[in-house]
């Protein structure tokens, strides 16, 4: 990421964000609301456009204000998980998982079902395969969403506050799945308010405030001895 900037009207949401994320790294994006965390994530995958700078994902280069097609490659490399799940409500859990492999990649249905069941098993939901989203709890829905993203065999996941809508005990089951995925070598970029999860699972923390990276480094450094005033102020409120 090099100098990524975005404004809404006169308000600057991202102001020259630059960083490098290595393959297999787990990065936690933390910071105050409105600090630009989610926007940065959405800029990577094209759900939001940025006005200046550029992002390089593997061999794919994304220019500011570039065409929609430049995101195709990135979307193959990164799956996205949303705060409010966004499962397809008219499909069962399994159908949610196999929709894209069958329709986008042309995978034969039987093969896709077999793989889909394995993925659901991996997130602990094999016996919920034929349930509709409305019949699942929040944590189960989010795990189906993760399985759905994994079905496209991405190299990493972009997670946008994926536990914010969940009760504490349900949060744990989702975060456990993420920890497993980290072990398997997926690159994870996680926007989160779970400071404990960030401390435990992240290789690196980026603290975003007012559209800039206020603090960046290993969890113990960023959380333990922040250098900037902005970071200290934020951490005081969340750790209190």
């Amino acid at each position, binding site marked *: 990421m090099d100098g990524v900037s975005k404004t809404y009207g006169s308000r600057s949401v991202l102001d020259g964000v630059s960083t490098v994320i290595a393959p297999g790294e787990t990065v936690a994006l933390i910071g105050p609301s409105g600090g630009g965390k989610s926007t940065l994530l959405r800029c990577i*995958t*094209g*759900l939001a456009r940025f006005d200046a700078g550029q992002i390089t994902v593997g061999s794919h280069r994304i220019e500011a204000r570039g065409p929609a097609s430049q995101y*195709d490659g990135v*979307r*193959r490399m990164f*799956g*996205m998980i*949303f705060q*409010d799940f*966004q*499962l*397809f*409500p*008219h499909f069962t859990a399994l159908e949610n998982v196999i*929709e*894209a492999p069958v*329709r*986008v*990649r042309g995978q034969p249905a039987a093969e896709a079902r077999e793989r889909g069941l394995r993925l659901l098993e991996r997130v602990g939901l094999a016996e919920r395969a034929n349930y509709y*989203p*409305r019949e699942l709890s929040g944590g189960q829905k989010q795990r189906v*969403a993760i399985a*759905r*993203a994994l079905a*496209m065999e991405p190299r990493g996941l972009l997670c946008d506050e994926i536990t914010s809508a969940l009760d504490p005990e349900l949060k744990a089951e989702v975060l456990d799945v993420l920890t497993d995925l980290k072990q398997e070598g997926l690159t994870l970029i996680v926007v989160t308010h779970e400071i404990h999860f960030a401390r435990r699972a992240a290789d690196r923390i980026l603290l975003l405030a007012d559209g800039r990276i206020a603090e960046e480094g290993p969890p113990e450094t960023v959380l333990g001895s922040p250098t900037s005033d902005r970071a200290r102020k934020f951490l005081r409120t969340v750790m209190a």
Partner: protein
Amino acid sequence: MIGAAMILGLAGGAFAQEPPLKWGADAEGGAPYIFLDPQDPSRLIGFEVDLAAALAERIGQPIVHHQYNYDGLISGLNRGDIDLAMNGLEITPDRAKHVRFSRPYYVYTLQLVARADETRFRSVEELIEQRLSVGTLTETAASRFLERSGLEPSLYDGQAEPYQDLALGRLDAVLMDLPIAVSYARPNPRLKFIGEPFEQGFYAIALRTSDEALAKRVDAGLESLLATGDLQRIYEKWGIWNADQTLLTEPNAAAALLAGETDGFSIRNVLWSLVQASVVTIEISVCSMALAMLLGLMVAVARLYGPRPLQWLALLWVEFFRGIPVLLLLYVLYYGWPQVLESLGMSLMFAPSRMGAAILGFGLNYSAYEAEIYRAGIQAVPQGQWEAAASLGMSPQLTFRRVILPQAMRVILPPVTNDFVALFKDTSVASAIAVVELTKQYQILAKSSQRYMEIGLATTILYLVMSVPLGYLARRLEQRWGKPQ
């Protein structure tokens, strides 16, 4: 409104204190009986207008025209809205049960008319033999004659339209009362009279059975007009005097004719006719709803995702077809469109049939409503669904088809089903272009038998049999899909 009362005959002073008589007649397209003067549309003219004026003078009481729908004349008379009905009403046994007919004032006959280049038949018998298509007016002597002959005539409400369809090749022949043929077909060089007029019958003035005194005065007035030759002068002026009129002087001619005809009412025939008409109603509803749903989806998608000019076009479509009455649309499609084709020198192959025009008309009209329902339904699907699908690499087209539309359907289907029920009932408007669907069939049957209540009940049941299951389906769909996530 034509209903602006017109005082005929001598002005005020001549008629002492007698209140004017209310004469009910339909001035809409009724040449040569009673119609608007093309030179001065604020004036009514016609042989019945002249006759009313002459009669008012003879009975010494003014006669004032009240605009009244032809179909409703007899019930209007018995309700007291009007005092007498004179509008080419034929004496029939069914009608004679409900009103007191005056002595006849005209002997009508039926005249067959075909296109000028017609060579397939030279008489009504040959026409019947070949079972060619014939148009005529609803509930007239001509329609009864054709039905007795085993034909299924196309039934119209207006007098001009059958001849228009004949000239356009949609009909092979038209059979109507001679005065109508004289007014509408004779001036048209593309049409010709076939054979001599036949099937004599009588026009008479209908009065309430309780108004015997008035009826006697009217009889006397007509007799005097006949005796002095005034009646003949009026008919000659309108070109409808002929030798048949000598029958008017034979006092018992009408009674003899009445005795010869029998009451053809049979409950089984009535039910069978209604069921057949229901099939027409179902055909129109199902086909036009399918068309409306298809067009509506295209318009909604154009409105939501099309380039700017297409969005404007879609908006224009919705406003246009939602903003005009479907009756107007049917008329333009069925009668106007062939005229345009003709003036462009194009084949009439592209002119819609009656059913075609009805299906197209309702389809276009309802496509505007369906488009708006679809648009609301599609917009009700959260934006996040698009984002989730895009993140999985799904194209916008694939997302719309697999993710958005199926979810929109749950919002869309209940109101669409409601529209379908509404359309079922709206199809009765198609009778304007001579489609005999359920309501039209009811009118025909009820009018001829004067059994408005019993046949109305049977018709109501048929409508409910069709619409209640649809309403049930709509509720089921709503229950199944209307649940929040």
